[in-house]
């Protein structure tokens, strides 16, 4: 198959029936592999990795904290992509997938924030610091809340899809702006305080520091979280498609009867 034909074949999944049939077929694979990856990764990480010489056993939190944080951001990116597809090509599945993904993103952000707070307590001596990275996640959380609230508030599904898509686009720009603003703001406040440097433990800086012992179980957990996210979004999109169909059928029933 040529690339163009493949691309065309991809759009066929915009058909709700086709999407439901295919997702039903592939979902067991995603559920099983994701749960297997997460269980193996967590067990490996929890039972079979040594304590860090500086952080002690708290290093084991990384297997939950980093994958959740990654998925919190990736989920927003996925919503951005599907919102664009909806605005450009008007495929209903795309808009519904964005709606289905948002609560998953909220939970991922919550996990990242909660594990971060629990981890931060013994490491930095505080549950919460207005560190740029922490603050950005809190702002991302607010964006998710607003997005979900807008979906819930609007009756007409097409209007809701349109408005939330635009909000997602505008919100993305402002989320990136906030990220830079927060970076600037905190530097302005604390010029390299030692607690803040400890913040480099979280997030991407870790990968450089983390030796292979921690890296492989972490990689497994990340893969597991990605697969879990896909499984959840496929499942929840299916639910949204059915809910939408119920609404359409009931409306038709009212008109006819």
């Amino acid at each position, binding site marked *: 198959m040529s690339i163009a034909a493949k691309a065309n074949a991809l759009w066929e999944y915009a058909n709700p029936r086709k999407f439901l049939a295919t997702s039903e077929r592939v979902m067991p694979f995603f559920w099983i592999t994701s749960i297997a990856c997460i269980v193996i990764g967590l067990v490996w990480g929890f039972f079979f990795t040594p304590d860090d010489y500086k952080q002690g056993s708290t290093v084991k939190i990384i297997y939950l904290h980093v994958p959740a944080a990654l998925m919190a951001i990736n989920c927003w990116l996925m919503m951005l992509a599907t919102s664009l597809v909806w605005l450009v090509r008007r495929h209903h599945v795309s808009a519904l997938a964005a709606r289905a993904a948002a609560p998953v993103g909220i939970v991922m952000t919550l996990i990242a924030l909660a594990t971060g707070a629990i981890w931060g307590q013994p490491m930095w001596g505080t549950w919460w610091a207005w560190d740029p990275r922490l603050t950005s996640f809190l702002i991302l959380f607010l964006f998710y809340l607003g997005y979900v609230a*807008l979906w819930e508030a609007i009756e007409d599904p097409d209007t809701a899809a349109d408005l939330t898509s635009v909000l997602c686009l505008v919100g993305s720009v402002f989320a990136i702006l906030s990220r830079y603003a927060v970076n600037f703001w905190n530097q302005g406040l604390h010029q390299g305080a030692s607690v803040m440097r400890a913040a480099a433990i979280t997030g991407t800086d870790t990968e450089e520091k983390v030796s292979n012992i921690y890296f492989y179980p972490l990689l497994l957990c990340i893969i597991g979280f990605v697969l879990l996210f896909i499984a959840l979004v496929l499942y929840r999109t299916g639910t949204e498609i059915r809910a939408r169909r119920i609404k359409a059928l009931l409306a038709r029933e009212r008109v006819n009867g």
Partner: protein
Amino acid sequence: MIALLLRDLKLAFRAGGGFGLGLAFFLIVTVLVPFSVGPQSSLLSTIAPGILWLGALLACLLSLDRLLALDWEDGSLDLLATAPLPLESVVTIKALAHWLTTGLPLVLAAPFLGVLLNLPVPGYFWLVISLLIGTPAMSVIGTFGAALTVGLKRGGLLLSLLVLPLYVPTLIFGAEVARLGATGMETQTPLLMLAGITAATIALLPFASAAVLRINLR
């Protein structure tokens, strides 16, 4: 266009409440702060720039749900949408009218409220400058939020939830300018960032607001 602006301004003054309400809210927030944090003037002068910025932002937010709602209810928004004037300009005019009736009075009132909070002397200049540059962005972003929620019956609270995260960059840089200025430090970088955000939102966001309004008027 000018006729529309004049009409909006006239309506804002005639309605009575809309014009003064934001100012009164700003005053009350500022008066309540010393009651909640204590009357020590050193503490107050430290937090004054931030409090004044937050107060102005909340006062601005409070007036947003009236921005388009009245025109929506009496149907003049539909009329405006079918008028030869592009909806982008309508939205910009609306934001400008909102700024003139809400943002500008807040900017002018801020120094007087600064006295109440014992704002350091060099802070007055930077407070007014930062608010003057920052409030137009708040009006434009607010118009976008108002356009998003215009069709909803109880849009007020949702409007706040949607708009407040969008205010974060403006608040950070604006309050930073005021704070640095009050302590006599260099303010150039945040000031440029604040101006950049305001310019970019004024240039780009009306397109999003107009698009959203078109969806809602469908």
